[in-house]
């Protein structure tokens, strides 16, 4: 694609900024590492051997390309636009997360790192990192909030089976942000041999751009598949957003397709008005955390407020800086869905499509329902089914009052 000046897809700039967001807000100890990582990634991303490695493992180990699936019964039930799912929940390990882990671990090998660390919220990124680390024989340490460990026990066991060491984080509220603090502390302490695999499009530059690039395989495949199956681009591409990696991966290849609305769905928890939510764009304001300037949930004093969502994967008080940029520029729209809506969609999608979605994409589905009605039968919606719900069945059963 020829790039127009001021194209949305040209970001970040040389300082790692997406407009006024992004950057490299890390302690001096980490700066040399962050700069070294940037140089290594810049070299790798145009190296045919690196890209071939990524494509080969994406095909044989992850199972790409993931299918595009016409959700016929949900289309009927919602009575409007045709709904297509990009089936990234069929990836090895059950979510989109592994696309990025594969890319970063391949880069870690190229850089000669001998140790992998990661943070995880729902456990999907931890499992995916442990999986790829196991494949390449690299020791792996995963930081996970104690609260999340409690609500995602099966994933904790998976990581252990894969040979990773899971370290519970009890500081703060024991969720994703605290796990990220702890992983950053590890990285500060072990800068020489350790590669930090960040799980979302946040953190210091080059992470937001690098994670987006690895996840963009979702949007590239989906764009080609939509053209093949429907003969045209979708009217809207929809994805859920915690940190925003699956959404950024879906959106990026569509940024220059002006006819395609890009819609991100944040977790409204008990409601954006209640203060108990994880909607950084809809209920936060710009600040600095975890290496980047972006929208954050924070109080008047700049202290970070804990996010709340039924979905551990969306339970983060920030959002990737590129989303902050796309939000301010108006290129993408950001809406939200509550815990209750996600639970409803979790059950509806299971019954109607035979697909148990993760709670994260169940949020996206709630807004797909409205959008289907808005666009009508001629409309075409592409939604990223970014994860499967097996990990959530215990938590959902509890919410529904069922004892397993």
């Amino acid at each position, binding site marked *: 694609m020829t790039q127009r000046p001021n194209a949305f897809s040209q970001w970040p700039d040389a300082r790692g900024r997406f407009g006024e967001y992004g950057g490299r807000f890390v302690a001096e100890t980490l*700066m040399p590492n962050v700069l070294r990582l940037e140089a290594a990634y810049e070299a790798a991303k145009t190296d045919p051997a690196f890209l071939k490695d990524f494509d080969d493992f994406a095909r044989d180990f992850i199972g790409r390309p993931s299918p595009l699936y016409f959700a016929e019964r949900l289309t009927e039930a919602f009575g409007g636009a045709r709904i297509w799912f990009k089936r990234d929940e069929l990836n090895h390990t059950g979510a989109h997360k592994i696309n990025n882990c594969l890319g970063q671990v391949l880069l870690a090998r190229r850089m000669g790192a001998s140790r992998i660390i990661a943070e995880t919220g729902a456990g999907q990124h931890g499992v995916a990192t442990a999986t790829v680390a196991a494949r390449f024989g690299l020791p792996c340490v995963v930081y996970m909030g104690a609260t999340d460990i409690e609500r995602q026990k099966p994933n904790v066991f998976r990581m252990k089976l894969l040979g990773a060491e899971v370290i519970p984080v009890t500081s703060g509220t024991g969720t994703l942000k605290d796990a990220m603090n702890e992983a950053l502390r590890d990285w500060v302490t072990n800068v020489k041999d350790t590669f930090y695999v960040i799980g979302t499009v946040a953190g210091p530059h080059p992470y937001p751009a690098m994670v987006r690039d690895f996840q963009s395989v979702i949007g590239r495949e989906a764009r080609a598949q939509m053209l093949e199956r429907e003969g045209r681009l979708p009217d809207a591409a929809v994805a859920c957003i915690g940190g925003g990696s699956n959404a950024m991966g879906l959106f990026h290849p569509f940024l220059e397709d002006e006819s395609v609305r890009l819609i991100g769905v944040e977790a409204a928890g008990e409601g954006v008005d209640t203060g108990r939510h994880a909607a950084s764009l809809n209920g936060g304001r710009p600040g*600095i955390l975890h290496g980047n300037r972006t929208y954050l949930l924070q109080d008047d004093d700049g202290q970070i407020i804990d996010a709340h969502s039924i979905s551990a994967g969306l339970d983060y008080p920030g959002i990737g800086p590129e989303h902050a940029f796309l939000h301010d520029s108006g290129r993408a729209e950001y809406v939200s869905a509550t815990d209750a809506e996600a639970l409803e969609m979790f059950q509806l999608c299971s019954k109607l499509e035979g697909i148990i979605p993760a709670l994260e994409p169940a949020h996206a589905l709630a807004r797909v329902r409205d959008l289907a009605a808005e666009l009508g039968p001629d409309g075409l919606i592409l939604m990223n089914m970014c994860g499967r719900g097996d990990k959530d069945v215990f938590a959902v059963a509890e919410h529904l009052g069922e004892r397993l």
Partner: protein
Amino acid sequence: MNRLSAAFARLKAEDRAGFVAYVMAGDPDAGASAALLDALPTAGADVIELGVPFTDPMADGAAIQAAALRALNAGMTLKGVLKLAAGFRAQHAETPLVLMGYANPFHAYGFSAFAADAARAGVDGVICVDLPPEEDAELRQALAENGVALIRLATPTTDDARLPRVVADTTGFVYYVSTTGVTGAATGAAAEVGAAVARIRAASGLPVAVGFGVRSPEQAAAIARAADAVVVGSAIVAANHDGGADAALKLVSELSGAVRGA
């Protein structure tokens, strides 16, 4: 001459290293914090670093993070920190006071407003842990306009290629983080610290204070022989939590005594 330069000039005249005491503002509450601050100069602190509490202090270890959360739970804010600073300054005309914290509370306050209010409160310098030279222009300019020093951190990973950039706009002194790691972790070997201090002094022409991981009087004395000042934080914060202000001040006396005797 500003208070930081004057303090380091005095130390040079006395031919000894200085002792920098770090305490967390508002831990366990504003009143106790004010009393502890007031007693630090007499106990032997040549410079005071006052921690600005933040919910997510990524470069700090367990002791300081816990102190920050205690302070926040007791209602401390950046405005409250500035009030503590002003209270201290009203009683102590000479001892330099440096705020150490993370970018987001300063950003939320507004860098310009913060710099002006810090100067008004008698703050002499600011260390912002997560603003590396690449990102600190806005805060640096605001502080410079108000005559407040921006003190940067140099670390063992700051190599010769990078060091000139790190020290270029630093004023007051350079804070050398003697180990890669969080606050309170093991300190670097004294010989390595000596070499690093010499390198930074040559590059910056400024005094070099060394911290991160200094806990005992013996360690403090060893660092004092190589550096212009020794910073102790986690150990004082932990003593204050475990044994109250008396325990913290006793430790400050011991540490500063060791530094003076080195």
